């Protein structure tokens, strides 16, 4: 079964709006990462947040982590058409040390 599950599965917004994607996981983690995948391409790392961190920022990206709820969110502010892609959360388990991906959120930003 998947460790990480993203919500929503698909999201459509207008340029300039904010996009929020959520990720829930099941077992305790070492860190959680977000990746982006443009259609037909490989994944690109966006940001990593460790289990002892609550929030991180990178440019227009803001990631939060709530270990008590076993959830994370990715906020993209002032979205652009170029942000159209699939976004995946991935968790590193405390046991096993592998990176487990969720199924992704497909974001469409309309100009």
């Amino acid at each position, binding site marked *: 079964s998947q460790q990480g599950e993203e919500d929503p599965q698909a999201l459509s917004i207008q340029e300039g709006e904010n996009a929020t994607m959520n990720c829930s996981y099941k077992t305790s983690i070492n*860190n959680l990462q977000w990746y982006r995948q443009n259609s037909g391409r*490989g*994944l690109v790392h966006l940001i990593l947040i460790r289990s002892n961190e609550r929030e991180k920022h990178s440019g227009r990206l803001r990631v939060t982590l709530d270990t008590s709820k076993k959830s994370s969110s990715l906020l993209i502010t002032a979205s652009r058409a170029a942000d159209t892609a699939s976004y*995946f959360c991935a968790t590193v388990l405390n046991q096993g*040390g592998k990176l*487990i991906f*969720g199924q992704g959120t497909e974001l469409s930003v309309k100009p």
Partner: protein
Amino acid sequence: DAGITQSPRHKVTETGTPVTLRCHQTENHRYMYWYRQDPGHGLRLIHYSYGVKDTDKGEVSDGYSVSRSKTEDFLLTLESATSSQTSVYFCAISALGIRDTGELFFGEGSRLTVL
């Protein structure tokens, strides 16, 4: 962009034939991974390597084998391809173990169709 090359990028083969996918990196990273991506399943880890000749199984390793005889090359072999192995395969690399920095760099993918 990280120097990762996957070959072939596209392959169509028949059930029962052997297939080898190659991942070549120029970054001298210690860790290499093979994932498959399927609709409804996201990315699933097949095998990974933590050094030359050091490999371990992932979530979906049945039907796959790997080899790493050099730092730069990680081969994924399907000994006898089945239709359920039709997928897009991604190679990834990382300099440190994923508990340390965790950042993976991905190749562009190899699309395999088994008829």
